[in-house]
């Protein structure tokens, strides 16, 4: 199950999507998310789906891989769906005890569930096609203008790099500790919610202890190499925009402007 989480995982490749400047990619994703939440009816979703499908096929990330990434979130999506189905007032289709399903509820629920699915697919596509390093480089560059108002953009980016960097490590470690405790007869898969939560103690305690230990070691290792933050720091690969990047950015901006405008039609 743990291995199914694809958020923050990088799927290496040499496609046009992979090579796109990370700043452009992040801006596109921001526009993508904005339009997702701006859209208030079904038909613009056709364009969103088309956008996602084209991006996926260009990136050559297997669709299976992306669907697998959705699996851990199924629970949240399902809850959102159910709450919307039962809590929206309107024309009643049928009742189930104290709960009633309305026509509006059904459409609202589908809408919300789709929104979440698109949100996760779009954003995971970003992390799947952008290596963590270039992702944080991009974020750092994008946040630079806010340095004037005291936003430590380099430090934030560094924190993100480290957090992303440790996702696989911590997952691996979780897996290992889980196995070790299972070897001692621990059971993570049965029992009710309270019992399951209790059963997690043998997993969480070592995980936290190890995470703190790692943080400590990393801090010392960074200090030993004279790391002192962003001031005057240069980098090996400077980000440079070329014509293609700008072209893609412009057309995507138009595309999302169009989607935003559908709200006012």
């Amino acid at each position, binding site marked *: 199950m743990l291995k199914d989480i694809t958020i923050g995982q990088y*799927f*290496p490749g040499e496609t046009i999507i992979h090579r796109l400047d990370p700043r452009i990619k992040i801006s596109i994703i921001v526009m993508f998310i904005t339009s997702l939440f701006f859209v208030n009816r079904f038909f613009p979703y056709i364009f969103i789906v088309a956008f996602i499908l084209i991006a996926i096929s260009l990136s050559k990330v*297997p669709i*299976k*891989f992306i669907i697998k990434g959705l699996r851990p979130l199924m629970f949240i999506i399902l809850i959102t769906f159910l709450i919307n189905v039962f809590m929206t007032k309107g024309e009643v289709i049928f009742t189930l005890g104290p709960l009633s399903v309305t026509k509006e509820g059904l459409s609202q629920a589908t809408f919300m569930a789709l929104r979440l699915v698109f949100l996760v697919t779009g954003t995971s596509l970003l992390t799947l096609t952008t290596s963590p390093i270039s992702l944080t480089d991009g974020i750092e560059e994008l946040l630079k203008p806010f340095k004037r108002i005291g936003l430590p953009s380099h430090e934030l980016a560094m924190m993100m790099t480290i957090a992303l960097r440790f996702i696989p490590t911590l997952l691996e*470690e979780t897996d*290992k*500790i889980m*196995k*070790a*405790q*299972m*070897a*001692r*007869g*621990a*059971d993570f898969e049965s029992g009710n919610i309270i019992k399951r939560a209790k059963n997690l*103690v*043998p997993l969480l*305690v*070592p995980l936290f*202890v*190890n995470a703190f230990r790692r943080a400590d070691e990393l801090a010392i290792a960074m200090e030993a190499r004279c790391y002192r933050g962003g001031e005057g720091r240069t980098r090996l690969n400077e980000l440079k925009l070329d014509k293609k990047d700008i072209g893609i950015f412009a057309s995507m901006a138009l595309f999302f402007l169009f989607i935003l405008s559908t709200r006012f039609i």
Partner: protein
Amino acid sequence: MIIKIDNLNYVYNANTPFEKKALDNINLEVEKGEFIGLIGHTGSGKSTLVQHLNGLIRVQSGSLYIDGFDISKKETKLKKIRQKVGLVFQYPEYQLFEETIYKDIAFGPRNLGLNEDEIKARVIEAMDIVGLDYETLKERSPFELSGGQKRRVAIAGVVAMKPKVLVLDEPTAGLDPNGRDEILAEVFDLFKKGGITVVLVSHNMEDIAKIVSRILVMDKGKIVMDGLPRDIFKRRQELEDIGLGIPQITKFMQEYKARGHDINSDILTVEEAKEELIRYLRGNENA
């Protein structure tokens, strides 16, 4: 036969760019009461193989019997298998979690559903086996101990489950020479008491040479050698080709013999080498 493996294969991350074949058609039979040394380079598939032994990794293809139970079958109760096969992972000290050492070691036996008296008896016995003093340590926190002591607590936690097969994955990694010898000696004592089969995973020949009765060498997911330590160490060139070595003392004796000294180079420990060299040199004097 306590372990029987037929045509076992395992692939990590199948159908992704990270696909990696970890086990390639493994066939293996282990008799009760054997002391096996499993050697291989990092990434040779040792850990994958031992995790199969108690069902932590599900069999993808092939079959695997532990004490007559078929693990590859879905309906086999894994809890039962995990009681039979105790697995001590690499750096097991990072899995300690309880407030007291007693509770931590009792975790396994408690999961087996034993009663409080039996649990206590087992904790006392397990602590004795790994050389920890029960009275002074039982109420202390495992996090206060030194690295070597923590590891002993973790090993005791598995020993207390009284497995029929005890698998130790690099139990001496990162320990100082004293700690290493002590832990190996404790494992060997436990083995000598009888009734238990031990699989010791390592990439350190020195560790293994002294105590095991049979060596398995793995390379790229395959078992490439299987035999008595003495026979395995004669194939020095092959071992070096896959990035493994032989114990230094064996190497020394082989080199010495190669320089024209008529000695028996079939040596595994410094002690044996001493005897052999004394015999040889005395023989020379008398001649």
